[in-house]
């Protein structure tokens, strides 16, 4: 029986081709599979949404490197879009030496969608700060001393969004997006020491370590992995805040369909194996 043998040994190139198809298709033509929003993503969304427009800014710290970009960049973009749409000022910074390029990239993508908003008034990239947690303490002491100028070199006192920030008290919410333990530093120094409010976006692999902090309320909300990014995008769309392409949702579609394809293949392989064995016996 030829078709049994065919099931048993499908050429791996056919497998590869199908994987490529199920990964590419959802990216080009989004399936729009529904994303169940977790309570932690909802909480983070609410924390941002509660900030009154044109008041205290959100401080977004993009503390990651390009290697985890597929998982985390959509989260940063979603937060930026949320702030811009709601007219909540947003200050972006990074504590990762390779994060500057990613931050600039995110602004370059999101800002043109809101042509009426101005750099320096509604959003700004403050730049990279060396020193990890020392920089966090330093912001608590004096934001102006920590960031004497923005990344483009304008003196902070001349940048409207930065001019009146003295320390964490003038910040509505901190959101840290990271793939490493730096989130824990934010919790210890910004939250415990300076009682700032903190939300986080974390890679799927490390997210398990942070659930305890959600219980204690030290994190007001959390996005976990590409799925977390997809949830936030879903919330933006549900609230009619942004209809920009949902990168993480598309990515999740691609990942889900690839998983299902692999599962189907394992299934086919086993059916082929059993039928083939029965025939031999």
């Amino acid at each position, binding site marked *: 029986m030829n078709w049994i043998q065919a099931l048993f040994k499908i050429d*791996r190139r056919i497998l590869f081709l199908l994987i490529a198809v199920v990964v590419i298709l959802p990216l080009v033509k989004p399936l729009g599979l529904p994303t169940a929003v977790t309570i932690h993503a909802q909480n983070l969304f609410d924390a941002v949404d509660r900030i009154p427009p044109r008041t205290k800014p959100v401080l977004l710290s993009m503390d990651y490197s390009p290697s985890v970009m597929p998982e985390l960049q959509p989260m940063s973009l979603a937060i930026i879009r949320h702030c811009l749409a709601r007219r909540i000022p947003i200050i972006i910074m990074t504590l990762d030496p390779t994060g500057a390029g990613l931050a600039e990239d995110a602004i370059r993508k999101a800002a043109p969608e809101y042509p009426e908003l101005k750099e320096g008034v509604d959003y700004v990239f403050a730049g990279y700060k060396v*020193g990890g947690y*020392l920089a966090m*303490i*330093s912001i608590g*002491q*004096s934001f102006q001393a920590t960031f004497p100028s923005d990344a483009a070199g304008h003196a902070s006192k001349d940048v409207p969004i930065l001019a009146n920030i003295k320390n964490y008290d003038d910040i509505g919410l901190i959101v840290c997006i990271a793939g490493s333990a730096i989130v824990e530093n934010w919790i*210890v120094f910004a939250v*415990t*020491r*300076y*009682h700032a409010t903190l939300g986080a976006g974390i890679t799927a692999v490390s997210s398990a370590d942070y659930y305890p902090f959600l219980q204690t309320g030290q994190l007001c909300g959390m996005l976990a992995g590409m799925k977390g990014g997809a949830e936030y995008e879903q919330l933006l769309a549900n609230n009619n805040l942004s209809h920009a392409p949902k990168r993480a949702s598309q990515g999740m579609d691609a990942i889900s369909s690839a998983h299902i394809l692999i599962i189907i293949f394992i299934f086919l392989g086993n059916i082929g194996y059993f039928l083939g064995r029965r025939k031999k016996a």
Partner: protein
Amino acid sequence: MKLILPLLVLLLFMPLLAFSQVPPEPAPPPAVPPTVAPPTDIVAKDTPNDAGGSITVTFKPSMDDGAKPPKITGYDVLRSPAGKDSFEVAGFSPRVAPEPVGRINDSSVPQDGILYVYKMRAIGVNGNEGVSALSNPARSSQQWFNTARINALAATVLFLIFVVAFVNRARVGKSLFIRRIAGLSAVEEAVGRATEMGRPMLYVPGIGTISDIATIASLNILAQVAKKAAEYETPLIVPNFDPIVYTVAHEVVKEAYLEVGKPDAFKADNVYFITNDQMGYAAAVDGIMVRDKPATNFLLGSFFAESLILAETGATTGAIQIAGTDQVAQLPFFITACDYTLMGEELYAASAYLAKEPLLLGTLKAQDLSKMIIVGILILGALVTLALRSGWVINMLNVG
């Protein structure tokens, strides 16, 4: 360091800032924030088991520590040379409750051997604060033995005794039984197969450095494989990731050819360095697999994400693959894509097994004895925990 000093000074002036923000009109009396209770029982002690420069401060938390909503954010630790009143902030501790005692290491002690005193300041949510009484004076010093590592020392000495004892038993000629390890019995067969087919063998020592013992184990196995390759005159390709591993691999293979009396058959060009880049190395080894079509691939050593790239490419070329690593996370990939997989410890046992050298086998016995002791400790510890509700076995295993 240069950053910290001004920060500390700034921190000292923080209370002043609180004053400067007093509203212009006189506040109504009930609005005056109640003071927060200070922490008590501040005890300073030299931090044990360190290189000096550090004093450990313990304290009983403020009465307001456990309040809900929180009344305090944490505690500042202030230090001054004893007898002087020049306190500076030396550290910060978050809230302690429900723990009965707080502990913080001040590792910025300026000088060993000088007496310092400490006090602590509870920082209220509203900027008010409660300052404790002074601690006892204490001085920091360095130690010459880490008492927190006594159990590690005991384990090391015990293990050393086991190894030496079993090696001596082997030396006087007591025979030591070692069970069959599937992947290793296959080595001979794999070499023979490559020879029959007239195709080369590929030996990939992984992307570890020489400080990874898996790499050393791999080089030990390479010595055995190279000898067989030299005997049968089967070409042996050894691409390298790490420079030092390359130099050793080169020596090992060269000596193997020398030992079987065929120094001229050694081709230096077959043992070479590729690149110190994980994926660059993987790309190049993939290239060797599909172009030189080795009949046997050895993937032994320290492997990371590239494990499956190499193993899966090798599987499609039809080579027999013998893999082994101590990177537990990569074992699932080797198991699925290779013919034989040496898991963790089996990799270390391999060179002893292949060399059939009684002295080398001795340590395997020492390892087995140690495993029996571990099993004993685990069972005993579980019984003590469940029967006595006691954690003393757990505490015994505490390491510093």
